[in-house]
C-alpha cells in the first residue's frame, strides 16, 4: 500500500475476486478499488460478469467466490450474517435496473422509505416518514409529501427509480452500487437521473460503483472506468483514458460497434465470433479468437493487467501501447443522397392515421377516463428500398403506428396504402399477397419465437403459408438459404429458441420476416434488447438485406444513434404526432423543433454534459 491510500483508505477494495457457478468461471481475478467520493464504472456486455461483481460486493452471491472484498475497511467475505445485514443498506446500498421489481407494489413509497430508515436506526414511525419525505425532496421529486402517499404503479419509471435512489440514500451510505440504473428509461429521463447521481456525489461525497453496458452513460457519471470481458478486467483507467485512447482491442471494438449521434458516419463494426466457453477458458488472452491483431503469443500466454505508458492506465493486452497502430482503420460510409428516390411512387403510404385508446369505465354506464390519442393524424410515406425511421420515447405512439401498418391494431381513421392497393385495416382480411408483402421483426427476440418450434419450422412457416417455394427437399434448401442470408447455417435447423443467444434469435426472426419475400419489413426496436456488438451485426445484416432485396423498412426506435445509422428518412414522434421529419443529416444536424433539440441533447455521449436539458418532466 502506498502512503496515499493509508491516509485515505478506499471505500471499496476488490482484490483477486473470482466467482464460479458450478463449472462456469463467471469472474476471474478481478481487482480494483474506489476512493471515497469517486465514481467507478464497470462496462461489459452480457456474460462479462459485471453484475456478479456488483452482487459479490454485497455478498449476494450464489456461486463460490474467492478473493477479498473490503467495504469501508470491513472484510465482506468474513462478516457474520448479522454484520452483513448492517453493512447492506447502511454502509453500501444498491440501486437495481428495474425499479418496478425493487419496490413493493402494495405498499406506499413513503412507507417503504420509512421502513428502510427504521431498519437501521431506532426512530419513531412519524419521524421516519418525515425523513422519507425529505429524501424524496432530495431526489427532486415534485410535491414529495404527496408522492410519499402514492403506490409505485402510480409513478412513472423515472420517478420510481428516484424513489429507489432515495431508499438507497436512507442511511447515508458511503458506497452506492448502481446496476444499470437507467437502462429501462427514456433518454430524457435517463439524463435527469444521471444528473441526480452527479449532484448526489458532489453534495454527499458518496462513492459509486456504476455498472452499465452503455459507454455514453458511464462517461456522464464516472471518474474511472473498468472494462470487463468474459469475467476478466481487461482495461482500467480514467474515463478520459479508456474511452478516448483505449489500450485494449476489445474496448476499441466496442467503441466501433457503438452507433454515434455525432461525428462522421462510420460503418458499424460488429465483433466477430462469440464469448468463449467459460467452463474451460483458453490459457492465453481470452479475447484472442475475436481479436483483429492477435498473434501466436496471445494464444499461448495470458497478458497481465499492467500499466501502459500513459500513467495509471492498465490494459490486459501484450501490445497495449501499439493498439492504435496495429488495428485496421475504420471504414467510413458516404452519406446517401435521397433526391432521386423522391421521384418514385412510394411503396408505403400512411395517410392521416389516427388511433385512440379508451380505458374502460370503473362501472358500467359511468363515464370512462378521457381517451388517449396514441396516434394522431399521422401521414408518412416510404419509397421503395428505403428506410423510414420513426423515433420517439415510450408512450409516443410509435409502436401503435407500426401495429396499425401491420394490421394488428385497427385505426379509427386514415388509410394504409401499399403501392397501388389500399390495405384492409385488419391483417386477417387482407389478401395473401398483401399479407406476404408486409412482415414484422419484433423487439424482444425471446418472445418473438414460439419456444416449442424448431428454427426450421419457424423459418419454413411463411414459405409454406404463402407457397411457391417448393416442398420437401426444395423447401429445406430454401430454409437453409434463408438462414445463410442472416449468417446462420444448416446446423441451426433443429435448434429450439432457448438453445440460441439473443443475437441468433433475432437473426432467426429476421430470416422469418424475409422468408416470405416481403416488400416492406416493419422493425420494432429490433436491436434494443441486444448487446452493442451484436446490435452492430444485426444492423449491418438489415442494411445488407435491404440492398440485396430492395425492401423498404419502417424502423421504429428510441435510439437516435441507431436511427442515424440505418435511416434514409427520420420522423420524430411525440404524443402521437409527428413533430419533425426529414433526412437524418437535417434532423440531427439542424433540428427545427425544441423537442428534437432536447432529445438530441439528452443522449449520453462520451463528452461529459454540464446539466440536463430543460425537459425535467420525467
Amino acid at each position, binding site marked *: 500500500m502506498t502512503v496515499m491510500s493509508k491516509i485515505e483508505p478506499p471505500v471499496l477494495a476488490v482484490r483477486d475476486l473470482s466467482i464460479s*457457478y458450478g463449472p*462456469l468461471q*463467471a469472474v476471474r481475478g478481478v481487482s480494483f478499488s474506489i476512493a471515497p467520493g469517486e465514481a467507478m464504472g464497470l462496462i461489459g456486455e*452480457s*456474460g*462479462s*460478469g*459485471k*453484475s*456478479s461483481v456488483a452482487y459479490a460486493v454485497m455478498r449476494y452471491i450464489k456461486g463460490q467466490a474467492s478473493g477479498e472484498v473490503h467495504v469501508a475497511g470491513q472484510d465482506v467475505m468474513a462478516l457474520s450474517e448479522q454484520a452483513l445485514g448492517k453493512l447492506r443498506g447502511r454502509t453500501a446500498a444498491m440501486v437495481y435496473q428495474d425499479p418496478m421489481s425493487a419496490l413493493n407494489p402494495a405498499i406506499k413509497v413513503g412507507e417503504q422509505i420509512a421502513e428502510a430508515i427504521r431498519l437501521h436506526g431506532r426512530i419513531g414511525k412519524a419521524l421516519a416518514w418525515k425523513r422519507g419525505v425529505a429524501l424524496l425532496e432530495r431526489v427532486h421529486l415534485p410535491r414529495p409529501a404527496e408522492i410519499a402517499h402514492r403506490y409505485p404503479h402510480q409513478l412513472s419509471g423515472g420517478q420510481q427509480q428516484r424513489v429507489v435512489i432515495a431508499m438507497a440514500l436512507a442511511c447515508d451510505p458511503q458506497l452506492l452500487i448502481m446496476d444499470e440504473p437507467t437502462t429501462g428509461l427514456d433518454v430524457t429521463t435517463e439524463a435527469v437521473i444521471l444528473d441526480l447521481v452527479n449532484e448526489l456525489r458532489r453534495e454527499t461525497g458518496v462513492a459509486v460503483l456504476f455498472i452499465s453496458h452503455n459507454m455514453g452513460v458511464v462517461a456522464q457519471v464516472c471518474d474511472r472506468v473498468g472494462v470487463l470481458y468474459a469475467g476478466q478486467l481487461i482495461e482500467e483507467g480514467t474515463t478520459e483514458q479508456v474511452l478516448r485512447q483505449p489500450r485494449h482491442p476489445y474496448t476499441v471494438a466496442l467503441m466501433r460497434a457503438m452507433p454515434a449521434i455525432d461525428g462522421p458516419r462510420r460503418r458499424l463494426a460488429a465483433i466477430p465470433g*462469440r*464469448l468463449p*466457453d*467459460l*467452463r474451460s477458458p483458453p490459457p492465453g488472452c481470452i479475447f484472442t479468437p475475436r481479436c483483429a491483431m492477435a498473434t501466436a503469443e496471445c494464444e499461448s500466454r495470458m497478458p497481465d493487467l499492467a500499466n501502459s505508458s500513459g500513467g495509471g492506465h492498465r490494459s490486459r493486452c501484450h501490445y497495449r501501447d501499439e493498439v492504435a497502430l496495429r488495428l485496421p482503420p475504420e471504414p467510413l460510409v458516404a452519406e446517401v443522397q435521397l433526391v432521386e428516390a423522391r421521384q418514385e411512387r412510394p411503396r408505403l403510404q400512411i395517410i392521416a392515421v389516427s388511433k385512440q385508446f379508451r380505458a374502460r369505465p370503473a362501472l358500467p354506464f359511468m363515464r370512462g377516463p378521457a381517451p388517449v390519442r396514441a396516434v394522431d393524424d399521422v401521414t408518412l410515406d416510404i419509397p421503395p428500398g428505403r428506410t423510414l425511421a420513426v423515433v420517439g420515447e415510450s408512450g409516443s405512439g410509435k409502436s401503435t403506428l407500426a*401495429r396499425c401498418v*401491420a*394490421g*394488428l391494431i385497427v385505426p379509427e381513421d386514415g388509410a394504409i396504402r401499399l403501392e397501388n392497393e389500399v390495405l384492409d385495416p385488419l*391483417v*386477417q382480411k*387482407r389478401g*395473401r399477397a398483401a*399479407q*406476404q408483402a*408486409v*412482415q*414484422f421483426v*419484433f*423487439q*424482444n427476440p425471446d*418472445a*418473438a*419465437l*414460439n*419456444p*416449442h*418450434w424448431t428454427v426450421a419450422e419457424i423459418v419454413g*412457416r*411463411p414459405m409454406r*403459408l404463402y407457397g411457391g417455394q417448393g416442398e420437401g427437399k426444395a423447401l429445406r434448401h430454401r430454409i437453409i438459404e434463408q438462414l445463410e442470408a442472416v449468417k446462420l447455417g444448416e*446446423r*441451426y435447423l*433443429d*435448434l*429450439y429458441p*432457448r*438453445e*440460441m*443467444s439473443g443475437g*441468433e434469435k433475432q437473426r432467426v426472426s429476421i430470416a*422469418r420476416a424475409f422468408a*416470405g419475400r416481403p416488400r416492406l419489413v416493419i422493425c420494432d426496436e429490433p436491436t434494443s434488447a441486444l448487446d452493442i456488438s451484436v446490435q452492430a451485426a444485426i444492423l449491418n445484416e438489415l442494411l445488407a438485406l435491404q440492398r440485396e432485396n430492395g425492401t423498404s423498412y419502417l424502423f421504429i426506435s428510441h435510439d437516435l444513434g441507431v436511427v442515424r445509422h440505418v435511416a434514409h428518412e427520420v420522423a420524430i414522434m411525440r404524443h402521437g404526432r409527428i413533430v419533425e421529419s426529414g433526412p437524418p443529416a437535417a434532423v440531427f444536424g439542424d433540428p427545427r423543433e425544441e423537442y428534437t433539440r432536447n432529445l438530441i441533447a439528452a443522449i449520453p455521449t462520451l463528452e461529459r454534459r454540464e446539466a440536463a436539458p430543460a425537459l425535467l418532466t420525467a
Partner: protein
Amino acid sequence: MSGVALPAHRRIVLPRLGVADLAGAAIVLGMVMLILAGASLSPYSATAFNPMHSLEAPSLAFPFGTDEFGRDVFSRVLAGARPTLLLAVGAAALGVALGTVTGLTAGYRQGPVDETIMRFMDALMSFPGLILAMLVVVMLGPAPINVVAAIALVFWPRSARLVRSIVVDLAHREFIEAARSRGERASFILFRELLPNVLPIIVVDFSLRVTSGVLLAASLAYLGIGVTPPTPAWGLMVRDGQQFIEIAPWLVVFPCLAIALASIGTVLLGERLRHRLALPGGGRAQ
C-alpha cells in the same frame, strides 16, 4: 448471468428416474393391464356366489378375504378396475379436451367471446361437482356413457379456466402477434402456436382429473348412481361393504386401497410427464 452454450452442441439428456417416477409408471402400467385383462386375471369369478365361504378373513386362498355372498374380494377388486378406471379416464379425457378448446378460444379471442364463454363456465362451476354429476346421471339414466358425460361436465369449466389463464398471458406474446401479422387462421394459432405451450399444463391437469375422476366415479357408485350391482365397481364395493365394516373391514379397506393407489399412480406419472413435455432443449417447466 450465465455463460453462452454453443448452439450446435446438443446433449442427449437421459431422464433421471427416481423411485417416484418408477412407482408411478408401474402403477399406471398395472392399471392399464387391469383395464385390458382384469377379469381374466382373477382366480375366481367376480360375481358367482359361494355361500360356503361368506365373510372369510384374508387367507392364502382368498388374499383379500370374501364378502357376505362368499365372493372373492381380490377377484372383485381386479375386475372392478375396468368399470371404475375406464369411467375416470374417459371422463377426464372428455372434460379436459372440452376445457382445452374452450380455454384456448376464450383466452385467445378475449373481449365479449371470452366473457360469454367464461360466465357460462362459472355457472357450471357454481354447482358442487358431485351434485351436478348426480343430477345429470339421474336425468339421463344410469348408462356408463352418461356417467362419463356427467363427470366430464364437472371437469370442463375447471380445465377451461386453467387453460384460459395461461393463454391470456401467451396471447400477448410477440410470437402470436407474428402469427397474426403473417395472416394465420385462428385455428392454426390456437392449435399449432398456443397448444404446444399449454400442453405440459394440460397433461398434469389430465392426470389430476383422472384421480378425481376415480374418486367421483367411486362416489357416484357409492351413492348407487350410475354403475349398478352386481358390477364390481370399487365405489360400489365400498358401499356394500360398509355395513360389515366392524366384522369384515377387508371389504372396505381393499377397494379403498385400490382407489388410493390408482390416484397416486396417475399423479406421479403426470408430474413426470410435465417435466418431459416442458420447454424443449433441456428446459424445465415454468
